[in-house]
């Protein structure tokens, strides 16, 4: 297939040869690999890559991906990382306005091709021994915002959706040594209309890149469905999807162990290369320890594939939890009790590296959340790095898992609702794109007990496209609730989108008004207590709502961490924090990204003690 630049603006093309989204499990080659967690079937491509950058497609080196393209023309760049933080292109912070505001008059799906920076990445690599001779896939965990992939001069595929994994099959083109992997990344595409989050506007390969080899038989997808039934009884079912090398014959073993390692369930089935899907039907497993924010009890599910001779071919471990969330008589019940959301919105952020955060950053965030009695995180407004979800499972941080969607620049103008060209609206051109985003979010993270809500995204107005996203989640997953706030502006969609009434920044009195006048749905503040600068006064008025209204479930403070960047001050030579407008980026929303409970350098703001107090009263 011949790649085309026209895909950037073609609503029909947003996944080319991309593998279907799948669960985020890790697979191991054998018992030793599992025990040591060496993940030997995986090969990281993070590190220094060869790099070229151009202001726009016209100026790019079109042939950079060819084997014969001279190596000495490249500069270097670090992966993962944003190119803007490594000296290429402009750093820009802007909130609602689209980033080309005042520079180009565009309507979806148009892109300003004179200002669409192109990052051309090259990585030369040899396959590590355990990967040689096997099927090999590649996973890009996050590339902003559209990417064309080549291997050894051959076009492999195309992907959008900056914040979910993009995976491709490299088997046909890969060789043991001397591979040239080339990625052409575009800063702007039609995806820009759906990725208008209130954040710094970056581009590049900003999350990890890994190769992984597939054993003869491989678990492509797993969907564990632990159910917490009445009286603390557990039920469990499992759906597995496989891929094989031709001729495979063997078996699959499933075991479930509690946290002490005691067996809860064991099962086994014969498989061969004709079995692409296998279901272990639901069965009762007796009393279980529920997973909750207070006691994040996890069971270990292990899937082992053996060949006909009984040798281990692949092992997939996954930690799952039994918990229940449902709406009963207008009240959200979490494991049978009223759900209390002592929540915060969290952007991924590091003042040095932007959104290319590390696991250490995540661990600090988790500790800080726990210490301050914050039990719930809304992943505003995109899926986070995969590692985050597992850490939340372990720590008992509940999640509202948001889909990568925010289009407020298309309908919110100077603070008023002006939806004349809103996306996705009810335009069938956008339906597949937004559904794909919902599907990828769901398929990737569906096994995480910490996710209690799926969220369709943020501030994207409402119409048939968003309704279809809602229907998708409801159809696929009855073990979670689905959240969306944007129906606030389109009351006709209130009954058909969102399981809860969600509002943002409603003063306490307006929450009361809803409760008194309507109150048919449980109420959530998906954003409240805007912690910009010296703020967070008046929390008591929200806290009191818990006592007044049973179907008031709390909310998510905006937000966890200031988004600001460390730079060296020209005048003093000191490292200082800078924000929008400081990079000659105009128009800008300046310091509007500084709304965290912690400063950009991960020091708690003074107001945190207030959060600790009010949240602690409710969740302890």
């Amino acid at each position, binding site marked *: 297939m011949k790649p085309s630049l026209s895909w950037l603006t073609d609503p029909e093309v947003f996944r080319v040869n991309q593998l279907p989204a799948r669960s985020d499990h890790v697979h191991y080659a054998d018992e030793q690999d599992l025990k040591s967690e060496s993940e030997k079937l995986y090969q990281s491509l993070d590190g220094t890559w060869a790099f070229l950058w151009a202001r726009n497609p016209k100026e790019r080196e079109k042939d950079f991906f060819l084997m014969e393209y001279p190596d000495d023309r490249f500069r270097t760049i670090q992966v993962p990382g944003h190119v803007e933080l490594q000296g290429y292109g402009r750093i820009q912070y802007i909130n609602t306005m689209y980033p080309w505001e005042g520079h180009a008059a565009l309507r979806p799906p148009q892109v300003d091709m004179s200002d669409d920076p192109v990052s051309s990445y090259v990585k030369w690599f040899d396959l590590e021994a355990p990967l040689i001779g096997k099927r090999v896939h590649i996973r890009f965990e996050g590339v902003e915002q559209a990417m064309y992939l080549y291997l050894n001069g051959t076009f492999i595929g195309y992907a959008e959706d900056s914040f979910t994994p993009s995976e491709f099959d490299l088997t046909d083109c890969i060789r043991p040594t001397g591979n040239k992997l080339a990625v052409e990344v575009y800063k702007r595409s039609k995806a820009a209309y759906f990725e208008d989050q209130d954040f710094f506007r970056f581009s590049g390969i900003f999350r990890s890149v890994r190769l992984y080899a597939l054993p003869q038989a491989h678990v492509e997808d797993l969907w564990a469905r632990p159910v917490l039934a009445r009286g603390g009884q557990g039920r469990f079912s499992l759906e597995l999807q496989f891929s094989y090398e031709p001729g495979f014959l063997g078996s699959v073993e499933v075991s479930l162990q509690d946290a002490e390692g005691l067996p809860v369930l064991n099962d086994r089935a014969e498989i061969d290369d004709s079995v692409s899907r296998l279901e272990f039907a639901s069965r009762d497993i007796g009393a279980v320890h529920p997973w909750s924010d207070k006691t994040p009890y996890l069971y270990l599910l292990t899937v082992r594939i053996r060949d006909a001779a009984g040798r281990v071919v692949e092992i997939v471990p996954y930690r799952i939890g039994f918990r229940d969330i449902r709406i009963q008589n207008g009240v959200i019940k979490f494991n049978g009790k009223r759900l209390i959301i002592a929540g915060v919105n969290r952007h991924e952020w590091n003042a040095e590296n932007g959104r290319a955060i590390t696991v250490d950053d995540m661990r600090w965030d988790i500790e800080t959340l726990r210490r301050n009695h914050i039990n719930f995180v809304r992943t505003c407004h995109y899926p986070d790095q995969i590692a985050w979800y597992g850490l939340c499972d372990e720590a008992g941080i509940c999640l509202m898992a948001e889909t990568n969607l925010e289009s407020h620049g298309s309908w919110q103008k100077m*603070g008023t609702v002006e939806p004349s060209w809103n996306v996705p609206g009810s335009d069938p051109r956008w339906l597949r794109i937004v559904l794909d985003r919902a599907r990828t979010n769901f398929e990737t993270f569906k096994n995480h007990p910490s996710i209690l809500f799926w969220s369709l995204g943020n501030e994207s107005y409402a119409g048939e496209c968003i309704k279809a996203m809602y229907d998708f989640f409801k159809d696929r997953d009855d073990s979670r609730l689905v959240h969306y706030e944007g129906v606030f502006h389109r009351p006709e969609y209130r009954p058909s989108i969102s399981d809860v009434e969600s509002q943002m*920044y409603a*003063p306490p009195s307006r929450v009361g008004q809803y409760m008194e006048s309507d109150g048919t749905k449980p109420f959530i503040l998906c954003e*409240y*207590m*805007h*912690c*910009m*600068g*010296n*703020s*967070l*006064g*008046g*929390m*008591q*008025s929200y806290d009191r709502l818990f006592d007044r209204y049973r179907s008031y479930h709390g909310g998510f403070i905006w937000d966890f961490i*200031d988004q*600001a960047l460390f730079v060296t*001050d020209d*005048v*003093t030579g*000191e490292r*200082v*924090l*800078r*924000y929008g407008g*400081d990079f000659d980026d105009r128009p800008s929303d300046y*310091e*509007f990204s*500084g*709304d965290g409970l912690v*400063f*950009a350098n991960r020091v708690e*703001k*003074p*107001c945190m*003690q*207030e*959060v*600790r*107090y*009010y949240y602690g009263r409710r969740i302890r």
Partner: protein
Amino acid sequence: MDVVYGDVTLGVHGKDFDYIFSYQTGGPESFVAGGLEWLYRTPKPTFWRATTCNDRGSHFPHKASMWMGADMFIETTGVEVLVDDAPLTGFLAPDNSRLIGSGYEHPASVEVRYTYATTTVPSATVTVGYRVVRTGDVLVLVRYEGVPGLPELPAFGMRFVMPSLATGYDYRGLEGETYPDRMAGARRGTFSVSGVPLTPYLVPQECGMHMDTDFVIVSRTGTGDRTARLTFRRHDRRFAFSLLPYTALELENATHQEELPPARRTVLCVMGAVRGVGGIDSWGSDVEPAYRIPSDQDIVYSFVISPSQR
């Protein structure tokens, strides 16, 4: 205690203190305690706080900006002197000559009371009395007289600028930075703060308030590296204070922390009224009504400045 009825100032001297109250600058010009000068310039009432993000979003400074001028420029309209709590007439030249050698030079207490008129339209009156007793303790009595027709106050208090940066301060009150609408989570206790920290909000703004304080002791390095202390303690009700290296207007003018000048002075504001910070949003919602400062009501408070070095 010796009182000096000068031509331009009134001096009060005791075993451990030397104070000079000026008729010319409109307030005390010198407080020496622990061998150290504590006043950089004459303290005045303060009405402004550096605009917070929520203030800006709700256009509060647009409504209240008159108070910024009042904070910067205030007119002294009167000075009175009370000796042993009785008004003294004829303390200005040339009448002061008759006080030399009189019993008025050794009273049990002397109070200098200043009257100020704000530059707002309409103008409001503020009186500040400094009543000194033999221990050197100064009872500061502050009264803002409410006037109809003025915007809500961003702040009201007394601002003391000290000539050098404090080495730290100790206070009994609430832990951390607190405001009337954000103080429930603060632990009560005695806290020791090293240096004069400024909360590093992305854009410099009002910060560092401590509500419900019993006392604050400011420490500065005196002669021979000896630490000198000045204590501000409650008289009747607890007070709020902030202790920062900058005035509200210095903070107001900076868009980044690094634009602030090198920290070289100590700015202690002892507050009679503090506006809440709000939190509903940063684009229009005001601070909740209970935490605003109405300008048409009197604000009366008092505190004691003590030179005791303990």
